[in-house]
């Protein structure tokens, strides 16, 4: 007796460069769902459409349903089917479920262990549900994928530690201050890297930012973009005690914050830690300041090394995560396969989707 088929078909950043992915991105998921309503033998479908992947998770009466989905997709995108076959990922049965588990866990992401994909998978599932295109099989597979992803994220180090320099700076600040709400941050210099760090701080709840630059007009411009106030560059030493975090990224040829100025500031705030993030080359902060009590000084090399350590630590967890997910996929498959066999006769056709349910736009 033949059995129904769980499948995934699509293309990801592993095989499709950004230029190709731009052509593959679905402009209107709702329009494509209407195309799929006419595909015979397709009983369930969910579309995962992000900047790094386009994937269709489906259930059909046989593998021909996957071919039909691929044909409908290539036709809508006006994409060469032969080219798509060359770059596609196509898996069935337990391997398709395992793939979804790995995607939701961030194991298949460009930035290993990143969290955003989990939300994107949830959105894709919610969109499919709201269109009525999921059934007993996809519901179970997606629910189990969410459980598996949560498990590996909490029980392994796949998501721990930041892997970009700006986010490492924020991570450092949370290790020192806990919450960033109420922290006062001074950005010395108007370099791009300092601005990126300031944005990362802002995104994590820091509200009180100030910018000081050697060129006042440029400092005002950056401050405006960040929603920050400005401080005169020449007042940096006298104002230092007012801030908890100082991000330095000037192009000055020598240090702009000396040990004595920092020591003087610390005498005015001895119990409050001061985090100095020196992203400038040559360095903006005299290295001797690191020895001061309650002063924590990190330069660009330190941040890069921590980011690299975090990246390596995540990679070291891959094998463990895969083993956990494979075990869970096996368990799921033992439950799902009998259900697919029971569905061997042609099931109900795919529900006609709503014209434009919420959340259909491609994620960034």
């Amino acid at each position, binding site marked *: 007796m033949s059995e129904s088929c769980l499948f995934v078909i699509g293309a990801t950043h592993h095989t499709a460069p950004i230029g190709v992915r731009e052509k593959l991105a679905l402009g209107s998921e709702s329009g494509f769902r209407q195309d799929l309503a006419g595909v015979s033998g397709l009983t369930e479908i969910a579309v995962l459409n992000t900047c790094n992947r386009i994937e269709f998770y489906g259930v059909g009466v046989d593998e021909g349903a996957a071919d039909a989905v691929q044909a409908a997709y290539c036709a809508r995108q006006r994409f060469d089917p032969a080219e798509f076959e060359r770059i596609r990922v196509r898996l069935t049965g337990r391997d398709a479920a395992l793939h979804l588990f790995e995607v939701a866990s961030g194991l298949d992401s460009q930035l290993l262990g990143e969290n955003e994909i989990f939300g994107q998978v949830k959105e894709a599932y919610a969109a499919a549900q709201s269109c009525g295109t999921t059934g007993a099989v996809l519901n179970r597979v997606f629910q189990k994928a969410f459980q598996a992803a949560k498990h590996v994220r909490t*029980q392994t180090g796949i998501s721990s530690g930041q892997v970009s320099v700006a986010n490492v700076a924020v991570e450092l600040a949370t290790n*020192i201050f806990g919450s960033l709400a109420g922290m006062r941050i001074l950005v010395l210099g108007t370099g791009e890297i300092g601005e990126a760090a300031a944005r990362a701080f802002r995104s994590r709840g820091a509200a009180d930012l100030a910018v000081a630059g050697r060129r006042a007009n440029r400092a005002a411009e950056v401050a405006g973009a960040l929603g920050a106030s400005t401080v005169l560059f020449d007042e940096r030493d006298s104002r230092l005690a007012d801030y908890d975090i100082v991000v330095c990224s000037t192009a000055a040829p020598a240090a702009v914050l000396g040990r004595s100025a920092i020591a003087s500031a610390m005498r005015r705030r001895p119990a409050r*830690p001061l985090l100095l993030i020196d992203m400038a080359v040559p360095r903006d902060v005299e290295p001797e300041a690191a020895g001061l009590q309650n002063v924590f000084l990190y330069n660009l090399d330190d941040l890069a090394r921590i980011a690299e350590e975090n990246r390596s630590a995540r990679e070291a967890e891959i094998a463990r995560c895969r083993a956990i997910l494979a075990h869970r996929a096996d368990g799921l498959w033992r439950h799902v396969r009998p259900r697919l066999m029971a569905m061997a006769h042609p099931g109900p056709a795919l529900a006609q989707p709503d014209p434009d349910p919420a959340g259909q736009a491609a994620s960034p």
Partner: protein
Amino acid sequence: MFADLSDRQWLWCAAGLYTAGLLFGTVSLVRGGRTSGTLIYATILAGYLLQFIGLGIRGRAEGGCPLGNQFEIFQFTAWSAITLYLVVGVTFRSSVLGYFTSCLGAALTLLSLSMPAWDAVRRSHIFGGNPWLEFHASLAIFSYGVFGLLALTAALFLLRHYSLKSKHLGGWFSFLPSIRDLDHIEVRLLGTGVALLTLALVFGAVYWARDTAAVGHVKLAATVAVWVVSFAAFALRAAGRLLARGFAWTCLAIFAAALLSLRSVDESRHPQPAQVQVRSGP
């Protein structure tokens, strides 16, 4: 079945649960995963309840707070520290603190249980029916429990400080709370410990003023020294003169001094042993 268990058997069970919490945390950390705060908290809570039963049986037998020998003082100190952890631990939101608390609970209870000599002599009615004296003693030992939790927090602070200064943030260090939070907790715990010990000494002073011969000089000197050091540390911290690592090391020293003073407290007990028992069993 449970009615047949002796007080020491209940206390062994409690020590076993504290040790189990320690092992859960250690296994999680060795495997590289997060320690389960809920699991450790539940294990400590179960151990705490069993310890409460064991100490309660002793308290009923002795007609007062079970502080009749060094074994009981260590058990009560551990129980006090864990009482405070259970009350405030949730707000710390740190499974690592639970891990360290189970470590402290296991260390103090196992140490006291493995020293039969500490429990060989058992005094009953040591407070002579004076509730104020009993309150003084229990409050003083409770403050030592607070110092125990303070020492744990100080140890976490020193680990976090080392990780930040040496620029190693990954692995085990990633589970530590922020250094500012730890510092705030240290200050609050020290303030609480000093307040409780001050209150205990005030009650003790009233009793001592009535009968100065009743309190041994060594005990008096030891407990006052613990109070002076802890109060000085609190005052210096408030004045911004004792900070960061120096403050954390001082907090550890205060708990060490408190533990050392327990021997002199025990030896100066009056009345002298009313009944002597050589305990058997576990």
